[in-house]
């Protein structure tokens, strides 16, 4: 009968997330507490698990816990485990679990309910006034007469936790080492290429006990391309330092951020990698401004530097501390081999409300002076990248993007130099809408529509497909997609089937694609290519710090064949 009563009490309290407890230790075990007694919830954590199965929690008598109380533990993995307090010290208590074979993890949360009366402040000892006249002052220290003020360990910490400054943090080293190989072969002899890469990046926090960060990112590349009998083969190896810099400041404690060395500019990444120095300052309002000076390495595998010198500055306005809306204006002036080269204005606008529609837009505007004849205009919108999108709670998503680009008239080597006419006329605009619709079954439709226009032609692409989510098991997928594209030289129609799966520590994907390519402008009837492409990849991710990735593809068209395989292995530390 007593057991039945306890079952009812425990079930009722457990339903509220609170376990029942036995009467106070002073009362006979097993008696019911008065029904009208007011109780308060008490949370606790497992701080020790002893070999005999006894669980020690971080609450004790000062928290109102007493021998005989029942505690309900809630392991992270789910479910609940009941236990009973068998001993209670001032600030800790020992709990015996009902199921002796259960082992709780340290930190597991537990709950119980204790009578509020137990938490009443202890009376302050009354110090009676001395009956005799006050004695002469003595050198003895005064006795501490203040009683316990009723603090319990579930209340906030007595002293405020002091913030650790960056320079007080221990030195930490993070990084990654990698090796990768990527190769391609064709059925025609003399057409192949290989790219081997190995390298790594290292971040050292607080290396000199001044709170800064040291960044190093470098890699060694080897690449070989067999072109054909008539062209010289390419065979090159190079060591490239992507980053070697020291940065300091820019934290909650230091409004000024500085960086020196080789690095991607922090304030306006669009201004590129710099061999130099950058200064940035954050204002109380959250706005930022900054400037940089130094040489810009060319964006080629060699990262050759010393030809292009730049100075730049920017100001970023933010609407509030959350930076939901921000606008940035920047200016970069560059010199190529000592001669004035580029006047670049950059504008950025971002609206990131966290839910609903977001917006991101960046404009690159070049200013041309009298010496820049090729463009024929003093101001040219060289590049624009605008996008807006939204994700709905139901799982739907939509993205609209507009991209414009043309060639800037610059001396610096950033791309294969275009002819004067292309410099003047070439442009392209691309508008795209893509998204997916989540269905009640969990599967989804996805689609994409794109339009492009350039100086000569116009075209677009269309894609629509259906995806089975968790196909064949959790994390699996299957997809059927049809697509069409009108490119500058061909009209493409095709379909793709894909399937993938999630293993314990790996993910695999396979796809097959067939497409018909009608070549525009080809002067013979032999203007159709049927192309078959098979691709697959395997990624092993769940191996702690290791990441292994293998992928390959094969393309068959007409009577020819090409293969590509890639391998990537990295270890983080």
């Amino acid at each position: 009968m007593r057991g039945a009563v306890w079952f009812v009490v425990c079930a009722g309290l457990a339903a509220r997330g609170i376990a029942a407890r036995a009467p106070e230790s002073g009362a006979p075990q097993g008696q019911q507490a008065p029904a009208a007694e007011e109780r308060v919830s008490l949370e606790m954590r497992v701080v020790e698990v002893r070999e005999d199965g006894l669980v020690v929690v971080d609450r004790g008598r000062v928290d109102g816990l007493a021998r005989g109380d029942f505690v309900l533990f809630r392991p992270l993995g789910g479910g609940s485990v009941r236990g009973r307090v068998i001993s209670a010290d001032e600030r800790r208590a020992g709990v015996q679990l009902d199921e002796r074979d259960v082992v709780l993890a340290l930190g597991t949360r537990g709950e119980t309910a204790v009578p509020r009366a137990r938490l009443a402040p202890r009376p302050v000892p009354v110090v009676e006034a001395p009956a005799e006249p006050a004695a002469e002052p003595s050198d003895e220290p005064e006795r501490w007469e203040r009683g316990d003020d009723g603090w319990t360990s579930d209340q906030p910490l007595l002293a405020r936790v002091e913030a650790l400054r960056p320079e007080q943090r221990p030195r930490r080293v993070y990084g990654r080492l990698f090796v990768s190989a990527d190769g391609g072969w064709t059925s025609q002899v003399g057409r192949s290429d290989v790219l081997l890469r190995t390298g790594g990046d290292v971040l050292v926090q607080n290396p000199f006990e001044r709170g800064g960060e040291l960044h190093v990112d470098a890699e060694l590349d080897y690449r070989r391309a067999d072109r054909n009998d008539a062209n010289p083969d390419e065979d090159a190896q190079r060591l490239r330092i992507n980053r070697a810099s020291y940065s300091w400041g820019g934290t909650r404690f230091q409004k000024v951020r500085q960086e020196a060395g080789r690095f991607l500019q922090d304030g306006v990444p669009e201004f590129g990698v710099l061999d130099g120095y950058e200064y940035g300052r954050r204002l109380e309002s959250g706005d930022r401004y900054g400037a940089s000076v130094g040489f810009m390495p060319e964006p080629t595998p060699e990262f050759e530097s010393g030809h292009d010198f730049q100075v730049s500055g920017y100001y970023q306005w933010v609407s509030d501390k959350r930076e939901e809306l921000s606008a940035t204006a920047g200016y970069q002036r560059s010199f190529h081999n000592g001669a004035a080269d580029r006047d670049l204005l950059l504008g950025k606008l971002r609206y990131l409300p966290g839910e609903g529609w977001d917006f991101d837009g960046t404009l690159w505007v070049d200013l041309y002076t009298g010496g820049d004849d090729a463009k024929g205009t003093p101001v040219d919108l060289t590049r624009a990248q605008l996008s807006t999108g939204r994700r709905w709670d139901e799982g739907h998503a939509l993205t609209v993007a507009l991209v414009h680009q043309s060639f800037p008239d610059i001396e610096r080597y950033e791309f294969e130099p275009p002819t004067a006419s292309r410099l003047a006329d070439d442009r392209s605009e691309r508008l795209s809408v893509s998204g997916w619709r989540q269905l009640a079954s969990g599967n989804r439709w996805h689609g994409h529509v794109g339009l492009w226009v350039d100086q000569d032609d116009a075209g677009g692409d269309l894609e629509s497909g259906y995806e089975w989510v968790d196909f064949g098991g959790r994390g699996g997928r299957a997809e059927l997609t049809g697509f069409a594209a009108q490119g500058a030289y061909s009209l493409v129609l095709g379909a793709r089937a894909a399937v993938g799966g999630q293993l314990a520590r790996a993910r695999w994907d396979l796809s097959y694609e067939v497409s018909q390519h009608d070549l525009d402008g080809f002067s013979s009837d032999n203007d159709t290519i049927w192309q078959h492409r098979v691709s697959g990849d395997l990624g092993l991710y769940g191996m702690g710090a290791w990441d292994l990735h293998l992928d390959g593809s094969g393309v068959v068209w007409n009577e020819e064949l090409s293969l590509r395989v890639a391998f990537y292995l990295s270890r983080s530390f």
Partner: protein
Amino acid sequence: MSTAKRWNLAQRISALLVAAASVVAACSTTQGPLGIDQHRWWSGLGPVLPHDDFPADCSLCHEGQGWHTLRADFEFDHAEKTGVPLEGAHAQAACLLCHNDRGPVDVFARQGCAGCHEDVHQGGLGQRCATCHVQETWRPFGQVELHRRTRFPLEGIHASTACWRCHPGAEVGRFTPTDRECVTCHREDLAVALNPGHVGLGWVDHCDRCHQPTTWSNAEF
């Protein structure tokens, strides 16, 4: 009457002053602007993560005399405790790589990938990294499929050509702008096309009239 008007004006001014003073007082005594509770910007800062609601037993998470070091066996269910699951490589990342002294993690999380990761593409490919990347690895995926959304769908040999053969800056994350004309990439092929001599005959553009995008060796009539 005029006295009443002056009194009303004085009242208004007083009211305005009181209101302004209230706003100033409210702002100065508010715990933080706009309720960003974690990773505060302003001075009077607590630790990176406020500990006010944490259990009083520091040894649950920390070790060492200064309590500045997390226990070696420290575990934290990020999804359960914060509602934000850590996926892919993020599940292995050190806490301090995101939760550090640079400011509120809420602000950076709102910016998506760009909140923590440098944009090595320098803005040239937009801010929607997930179009080409997944959270498990930074190796991009689906390049051939995505290229179909440009003016130059990859066909024939182009569908199996390394990116760096056409995009000189690919290895450092720069892909644009790229000219779509054949000779931009095949200038050397044009120079050695001697049977017949293409340059001498003035065949220096519109290669697609005679050549298919195959292995380029012969014209396909």
